[in-house]
């Protein structure tokens, strides 16, 4: 995965880890919009949300002890983790040294209250327009549009590895793909192993990976990052199927808007008016369960690819049936999905609504060589399993799961570590002394007392060498 600014904690949204690295000033500025506060609130986990609610209506600061008494014994660890997250986001800044008084960041408190109560004059939830009945824009059409845009990007990535027939996306997207390390090479970019991994993640995760990359290059483009985030958050609080006016948008918003149209987050039919698509409105809901049933049933294909989101169970469109004999049947005609399956399945036949194939050693080897891991393959199969498959327990036949993992292990029969081998110690005291030092820097990879040899990493080697030299200079005895 192309590394965002910080490693995501388990279970935490990657945007939050990104925000946690931002300065307090930017964050305070971000919280000046009620819609941003609300969107951020929805990205947090349940416990963090509850802690915010506990502090939200308090006027003054409270001693942390007052709140701590409510934490149960088992809840101590998650509670502290939540408090750390909130502090890092400057929502609930940690108290100054020597005090234990806590309160929400004033800007966040004020604007989140506004978001819950309504009112104010901040226009941060988007200015809706009169319904334009003639346009023929409806939710289904928006879903189709968003799916097309997004899938054309993905399809371009997939096909770059093979024949490259897919249409090229715009320059901006190409640049982004290149910057994020998902594709590499000038002129005719090729997908990288990160890119392959990227393809198997959920659309929600894919979207945010690209958007984070987008945020990280705002500086070079002289765009105000805080405003970009505010704009994304604003889009995420808009309603699907409602048209919004762009008249009140700032210049930053307008320039970002053009890019977002390319990604399929926004649909623009009339000048000065936009429709957010489902990609945008589910940005911060953290779940695709809101996918309307019509989208699921009437267009199972696009619905599936759009909603194969974080909540596996509610994703509407599983289409893969996998048998214990490694045969795979995929009920799809979507070229993108077929291309993705083709990454690790050797396809045999194609019918009007069905692709058959089987998982073979070669096909999995090919995927592994591309940098895809066995776990990613399995999780993709789980995510997109056909409803019929859900009758099985476990979902994916255990033989197939094990075999895919075995194939991966087979590939890794040899582990390679660079470094230095220390040997030919004359006395065991010398050996122990140096080894002790190497251990203290935890750089020992292998050791053997009988042979008086050990292997250290390059960094450990430098440190050991210095240690020995210093020791010699000080006249400490080395035989």
């Amino acid at each position, binding site marked *: 995965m192309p590394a965002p600014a910080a490693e995501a904690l388990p279970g935490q949204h990657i945007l939050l880890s990104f925000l946690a690295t931002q300065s307090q000033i930017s964050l305070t500025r971000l919280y000046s919009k009620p819609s941003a506060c609300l969107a951020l609130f929805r990205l947090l986990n349940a416990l963090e949300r509850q802690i915010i609610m506990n502090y939200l209506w308090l006027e003054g600061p409270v001693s942390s002890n007052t709140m701590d008494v409510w934490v149960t014994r088992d809840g101590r660890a998650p509670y502290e983790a939540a408090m750390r997250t909130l502090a890092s986001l400057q929502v609930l800044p940690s108290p100054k040294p020597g005090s234990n008084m806590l309160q929400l960041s004033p800007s966040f408190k004020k604007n989140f209250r506004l978001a819950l109560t309504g009112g104010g004059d901040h226009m941060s939830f988007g200015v809706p327009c009169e319904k334009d009945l003639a346009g023929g824009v409806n939710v289904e059409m928006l879903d189709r549009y968003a799916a097309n845009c997004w899938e054309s990007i993905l399809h371009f990535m997939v096909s770059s590895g093979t024949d490259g027939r897919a249409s090229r996306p715009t320059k901006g997207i190409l640049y982004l793909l290149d910057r994020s390390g998902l594709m590499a090479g000038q002129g005719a970019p090729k997908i990288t192993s990160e890119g392959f991994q990227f393809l198997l993640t959920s659309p929600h995760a894919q979207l945010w990976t690209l958007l984070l990359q987008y945020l990280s290059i705002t500086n070079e483009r002289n765009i105000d990052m805080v405003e970009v985030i505010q704009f994304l958050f604003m889009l995420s609080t808009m309603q699907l199927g409602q048209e919004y006016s762009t008249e009140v948008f700032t210049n930053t918003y307008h320039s970002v808007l053009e890019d977002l149209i390319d990604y399929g987050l926004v649909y623009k039919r009339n000048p000065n008016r936009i429709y957010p698509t489902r990609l945008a409105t589910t940005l911060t809901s953290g779940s695709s369960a809101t996918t309307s049933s019509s989208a699921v049933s009437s267009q199972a294909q696009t619905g599936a690819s759009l909603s194969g989101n974080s909540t596996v169970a509610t994703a509407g469109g599983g289409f893969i049936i996998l048998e214990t004999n490694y045969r795979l049947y995929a009920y799809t005609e979507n070229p993108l999905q077929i291309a993705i399956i083709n990454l690790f399945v050797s396809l045999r036949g194609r019918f009007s609504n069905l692709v058959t194939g089987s998982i073979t050693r070669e096909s999995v080897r090919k995927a592994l060589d591309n940098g895809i891991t066995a776990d990613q393959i399995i999780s993709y199969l789980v995510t997109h399993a056909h409803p019929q498959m859900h009758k099985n327990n476990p979902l994916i036949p255990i033989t197939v799961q094990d075999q895919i993992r075995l194939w991966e292990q087979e590939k890794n029969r040899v582990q390679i570590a660079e470094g*230095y081998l220390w*040997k030919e110690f004359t006395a065991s005291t010398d050996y122990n002394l140096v080894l002790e030092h190497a251990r203290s820097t935890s750089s020992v990879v292998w050791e053997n007392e009988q042979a008086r040899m050990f292997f250290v990493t390059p960094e450990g080697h430098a440190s050991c060498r210095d240690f020995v030299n210093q020791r010699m200079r000080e006249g400490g005895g080395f035989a």
Partner: protein
Amino acid sequence: MRAIKGVLLTCDSAVKQILLTLNEKEAFIVEDLDETHVIIAPDKVERVRQALASELEKNAFSLEANVP
């Protein structure tokens, strides 16, 4: 006391035997440490890896070949 630069290969004993055989054709093992560890010359890592892969591949059989 001496330190030598090298690459530590950690493998299972079967692979170790293959490595020893390969070593007879073209020496790359710097130090044979124990059943599961050898040190090889840093510049030969890629060659060894490929040779090993093709050697292992000889032992993999697939149904695919027989099925049209």
